[in-house]
């Protein structure tokens, strides 16, 4: 983990309020695990705290990596005004990502919801390069905020669900999963808590990994802002920290 002023190479709105941001710098040398994140200081002074954003794609050759974020509040709105050539204060890579231990020929199911989709892209690339067969189920609110469909399609079968039915099947990813009955050895998921919860209830048949979000202070494990109970001790003192023990956990490990 390091802190580096990285330079913006590319920055574009790729769907409604969804931005793709590529930055370069030597910090990329440390990046390997899909599902890790960086902690970005957007403005000088305000906003005060860093913003956690997932690593969506790593490009070691160019010492660059890509993030995909949604313009939401103060921080991401300010971030969206940055231009190529501007520099960005990046701390990372942080946390523990998805394990990439499936073997050639095994099957992986990747399920993403909304702005939880980005980290699955690097994961999918790494799985595919190992010869794993990958199926994606990506859920979005509506077609205008969907992104990276082509990119995912190039890596494996890709099913889309939108809540309003404007793209792919109508409904949630869990509806889509029940319908398609996809075969897999392990599943990997990132998205809103409600989706992860529904998934844990739907996909009881195999090993799964889920990536969590929590409001963070330090992002490195020191402030205890991002603590969750363990399912093994749901009301006791056992805990995990999303920032340093996660954000990826084995399905069933953490109380959602």
């Amino acid at each position, binding site marked *: 983990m390091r802190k580096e002023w990285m330079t913006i190479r590319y920055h574009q709105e790729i769907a409604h309020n969804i931005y793709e941001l590529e930055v370069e710098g030597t910090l990329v040398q440390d990046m390997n695990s899909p599902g890790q994140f960086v902690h970005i*200081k957007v403005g000088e002074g305000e906003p005060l705290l860093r913003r956690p954003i997932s690593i969506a794609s790593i490009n070691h050759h160019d010492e660059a990596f890509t993030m995909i974020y949604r313009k939401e509040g*103060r921080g991401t709105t300010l971030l969206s005004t940055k231009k190529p050539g501007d520099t960005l204060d990046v701390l990372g890579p942080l946390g523990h990502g998805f394990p990439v231990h499936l073997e050639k020929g095994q099957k992986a199911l990747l399920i993403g919801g909304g702005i939880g989709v980005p980290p699955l892209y690097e994961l999918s690339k790494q799985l595919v390069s190992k010869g794993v067969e990958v199926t994606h189920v990506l859920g979005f609110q509506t077609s205008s905020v969907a992104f990276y469909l082509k990119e995912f399609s190039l890596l494996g079968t890709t099913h889309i669900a939108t809540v309003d039915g404007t793209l792919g099947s109508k409904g949630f990813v869990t509806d889509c999963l029940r319908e398609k009955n996809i075969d897999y050895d392990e599943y990997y998921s990132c998205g809103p808590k409600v989706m992860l919860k529904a998934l844990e209830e739907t996909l009881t048949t195999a090993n799964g990994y889920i990536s969590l979000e929590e409001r963070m*202070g*330090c992002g490195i494990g020191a402030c205890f*802002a991002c603590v969750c*109970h363990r399912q093994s001790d749901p009301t006791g003192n056992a805990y995990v920290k999303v920032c340093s023990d996660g954000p990826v956990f084995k399905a069933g490990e953490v109380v959602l």
Partner: protein
Amino acid sequence: MSRLSIHLPGLQLKNPIMPASGCFGFGQEYSRLYDLSCLGAIMIKATTPLPRFGNPTPRVAETSSGMLNAIGLQNPGLEGVIESELERLKQFDVPIIANVAGSVTEDYVQVAKEMSTVSNVNALELNISCPNVKTGGIAFGTIPEVAMELTKAVKEVSSVPVYVKLSPNVSDIVAMAKAVEQGGADGITMINTLIGMTLDEKTGLPILANKTGGLSGPAIKPVALRMIYEVAQHVDLPIIGMGGIQSAQDVIDFISVGASAVAVGTANFIDPFVCPTIIHDLPEKLDALGVQHILELQGRSLPNGKRATYSA
């Protein structure tokens, strides 16, 4: 003799910079980023007799130039802190100030008694000001007599100097400082967080699960400076100042109003290297101000000029 070294009760500091309690865990995470031996001291996270999980999440939220936290004193308990955390810190050449918390006097006394016997604990910091625990706590931090009695009780059992951490959520900070002085405190640390709240824009509900939380960061710096300015004029105890410190200039400001050393809290989250950076930047600041030792600046804001109670 270093330009930054400072002697305080129980503490020989290489420099006046220490991470504030709760903002540095027990040092483990930051020790992977830099050598903790460069720090003046470390104020470790609050310890209670038994392990605590703390409050539900969300536990932090952002405000203008500040943040709110309601961690709720999560910690592995006295035994856990002594056996693993303090043990691990022994590899570093840095004084430790142990933050002592609890709900009732007996909690504080128990933690203080045992903590103070650990070889690398050089001083205690009595946390009578945590705004995030529902039971009891408040009275310790806001009623002078109660604070005095608690200080006395802890002083009786502690084998190292005791600093008392004051809450800014009081009508009369000087009365609180005098009370703990009378109770036998060896020093004061101030300020803890102001109590605040922030809302989710759509639902209107408080963002923190605990509803209210402690406000820290640059937003509270003017309140911290003012309170130290007042206390330094009325109490002879050394003060470790904190509240919004982010830079070497901020450190100079706190020393100027009478602090003898400072703690850096929230800024560690924004820049994990902030403490070593400040330590690195300070000598240049001293040059610019034309002083050799940082304590030459101590109390220069005060009506009667310098307050050089504690020397290098």
